[in-house]
């Protein structure tokens, strides 16, 4: 069951208060885009691969368009910490406009990076001042789903570049998740998650070369 996250090819076991936390991820976006679902889907998928997981949200009001953050903890021990994540290993941004009102990279750890929905990678990286990998999730979502709901793309992109969960596990989870909405929607989301996963998986080598955090098995 024990799995490790490697940083600079050194096994990175982070001990806080005698407990072992392997991974902390913070998701940013706006109400209605699936920020909460992103963390939840990954909590379910990572559990299927033998990790203990916890995900939960925070937001201002129950309205579309307000800034939303959600949190994901993945560990090889049951997760007991329920405070918000102030020093994430990774940050996932579903909506770039949220950066105008929220400091999305606040507390990002050394060796961590941002996975964002944005059309121009260099521009965003300069703006954020931390290592950033982008994917044009809005475009892909409209292409595959006909709607600018970016969570499926970003879940696939994040899992692809970090290796947190395998593609098969993620596809299975996404299919189960969207099956309530009908077979067709589930299939579209599964195809979309695969597309994003494969696209970002290609960039894993860059992450490795830069000595950033990866989930190795």
């Amino acid at each position, binding site marked *: 069951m024990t799995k490790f996250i490697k940083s600079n090819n050194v096994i990175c076991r982070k001990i*806080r*208060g*005698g*407990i072992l936390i392997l991974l902390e991820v913070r998701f940013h976006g706006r109400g209605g885009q699936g920020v*909460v679902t992103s*963390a*939840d889907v990954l*909590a*379910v998928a990572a*559990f299927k691969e033998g990790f*203990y*997981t*916890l*995900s*939960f*949200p*925070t937001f201002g*009001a*129950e309205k579309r368009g307000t800034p939303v953050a959600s949190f994901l903890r993945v560990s090889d021990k*049951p*997760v*007991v*910490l*329920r*405070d*918000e994540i*102030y020093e994430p290993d990774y940050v996932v941004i579903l909506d770039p406009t949220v950066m105008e009102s929220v400091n999305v990279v606040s507390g990002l750890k050394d060796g961590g990076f941002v996975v964002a929905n944005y059309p121009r990678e260099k521009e965003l990286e300069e703006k954020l001042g931390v290592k950033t990998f982008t994917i044009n999730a809005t475009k892909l979502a409209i292409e595959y789903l006909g709607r600018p709901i970016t969570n499926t793309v970003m879940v696939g992109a994040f899992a692809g570049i970090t290796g947190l969960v395998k593609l098969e596990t993620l596809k299975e989870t996404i299919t189960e998740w969207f099956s309530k909405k009908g077979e067709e929607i589930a299939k579209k989301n599964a195809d979309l998650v695969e597309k994003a996963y494969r696209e970002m998986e290609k960039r894993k080598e860059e992450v490795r070369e830069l000595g950033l955090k990866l989930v190795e098995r």
Partner: protein
Amino acid sequence: MMKVVRGFYAVAYSVKLCKPDVICAYPITPQSEIVENIAQMYANGELGNCEYITAESEFGAASILVGASATGARTYTATCSQGLILMSEVLWNAAGMRLPIVMTIANRSLSAPLSIWNDHQDSMAIRDAGIIQMYVENNQEVHDMMPQAFKIAENHKVMLPMMVCMDGYKLTHAYEPVDLLSQEIVDEFLPPYDPPVKMTTKEPYTFGSYATPATYMEFRAAVYNAMERSRKVIEEVYKEWAEISGRNWGGHIVAENCEDADVCVMAMGSLVGLVREVVKELRGEGKKVGFIKIRTFRPFPAEEIAKAVDNAQKVVVFERSLSMGSDAPVTLDVKAAIHKKAIDVYSPVVGLGGRDVPHKLVKSTIEEVIEGKAKPGTYFKGLKDYEEVVV
């Protein structure tokens, strides 16, 4: 079966296994999805002969359950915050009529100002109603507590409503692994409700009728006595659950490393995991600190707490609510429990209206007490700089 589920589902699924006869509720954030999940199960025909009634308000929901419970039905509802306050008139009646209605409270703050986020002010506001209250630390515990709540409430020595309190959002909205119970285990543990008295059309009774000064006081004394008797019943049920499920959540309190502790730290609800870890961390740094998780709040485990803190000089109570004009509610009870001992009680109030309680804040708050930098009494932690306007 271990599965990653949301807090709502952990509750709803467990309630289903308890085979309630009547469920009646009114939606309120962050509780709504509990009853939405149950309504879905009802619509799918998974609830057997259970009646699921949608009420026009929480007042209506509680009233319907009072009637249903009086006919001998096993009854359930879930609510929080303003909804609980709106129910409160009926709930005092339910306790006085000795109706074992079981409720899940998705703890949320009270207005004003309006907030949908978590603290314990709602359940604390009706702590004196004659309703048993217990607080859970995670979604496995709330899942495990539902069958226990029915068994405790419906015990003939008790016959009181019971509230299982779970923190709104922090637990209700959290996805985490929960070992879902089987119907067999719940059936083995929880017998069908056997009401000592029930109303039928052939045998009508009056519940909660007018009591003159000649009789009222005895009824209230009986509620008090039932709550006292519940102490033993609750402990027995907790114990039986540990045996049957293999998960031992402890008794009324869980005391860890308190025997040699100079400072004992107490918490209740979803903050427990974090505070426990911080205390372990401080132990690792050589500080003589102990931890107490309070599970049962009504009846208050005064004897257990007094015993656990016997060797301490200081006690820290992390409070998630207030009593305006006095110490916060848990502190009041803790102070009463240890009034014969020379122990200073520190009551940092944290996380009102969903304000996050970070690891750093918990640690520095405890360290300040250890180092003698805090003053005993009620004080706020995690407040921003603000100016109060007094005109």
